């Protein structure tokens, strides 16, 4: 990370900030538009885009000097997907639901 801080990352930080605010505005406006089943997909897609931007550029995962950081992030996401994916594959395939 130290080698990264030599060049000023301010432009990138403000760019990410503007993008995040724009995404918030879009997701807020899109929620009031009738998109049928795609409303949830749009809202969660934008949320995931925002979370990815924050993690990669504000939390410096993109420029992490330690590869273990990336490993921990991937492992955390993997186990979260196991939890959500396996639980929902059970509940979504029950006939009585």
């Amino acid at each position, binding site marked *: *990370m*130290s080698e990264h*801080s030599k060049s000023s*990352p*301010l432009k990138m*930080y*403000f760019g990410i*900030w503007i993008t*995040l*605010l724009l995404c*918030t*505005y879009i*997701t*807020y406006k899109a*929620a*009031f*538009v*009738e*998109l049928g089943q795609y*409303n*949830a997909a749009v*809202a*969660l897609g*934008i*949320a995931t885009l*925002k*979370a990815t931007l*924050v*993690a990669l550029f*504000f*939390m410096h995962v993109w420029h*992490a*000097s*330690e590869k*273990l*950081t990336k490993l*921990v*992030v991937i*492992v*955390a*996401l993997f*186990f*979260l997907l196991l*939890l*959500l994916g396996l*639980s*929902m594959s059970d*509940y*979504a395939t029950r006939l009585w*639901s």
Partner: protein
Amino acid sequence: MPDSTLVGLHHEEQHHPELLHHFAEPQQQRDAASLGMWVFLATEVMFFGGLFCAYLIYRRWYFGDFGAASKTLNATLGATNTAVLICSSLTVVLAVWAAKTARRTLLLVSLGITLLLGLAFLGIKGVEYKDKFVEHHVPGASFSFDKVPLPGHPGQYANPRHAQIFFSLYFIMTGLHALHMIIGLGLFLWLLIMAWKGRFTPEYNTPVEIGGLYWHFVDIIWIYLFPLLYLIDRHP
């Protein structure tokens, strides 16, 4: 890594006072602290993950009731709070950058604004909670959710028991998030005091960096809570 350990032993007498004796060099100490925070955040992902999983299951079961209950939340205040947290994330990265580049004024101002934005978030959250108490939407003996129309089903009303599950999840998830915000405010107040005393330098700024990681993580949780709790079934 073994190479740097050997090098570190030879330079032990001239190292930075903040460098603990079991680390070879400042970079190794910084990476270890950062990794420790990331492992903690991984456990937090599972902690909140269980609640998100509970939310998804009940959302599937009581789809319309959740939509009706969600519509009673103030989406404008929720969106405002999202913007407040995003702005605070910007001031946090500015603080980390200022600490790394020895910009004392920017560091103090950024940490100060972060604290103010965190307090603003909790204030807005408090207003929302107050509204829920006034409307008797807080789960418990005085909970009331009568004759609330079910979205997409004209003439039908939401089941109050199912709506109460939505509000239970709402209060647990936003309450736990608010608790993280309060802890974060404590951390950043401490960082502000340490920065005021001039403890952070380009060589040693790990507390600002890993405190920032925590703050951004709490921001990410809110980024998901906002659409899931406030924006489901908003459309007419």
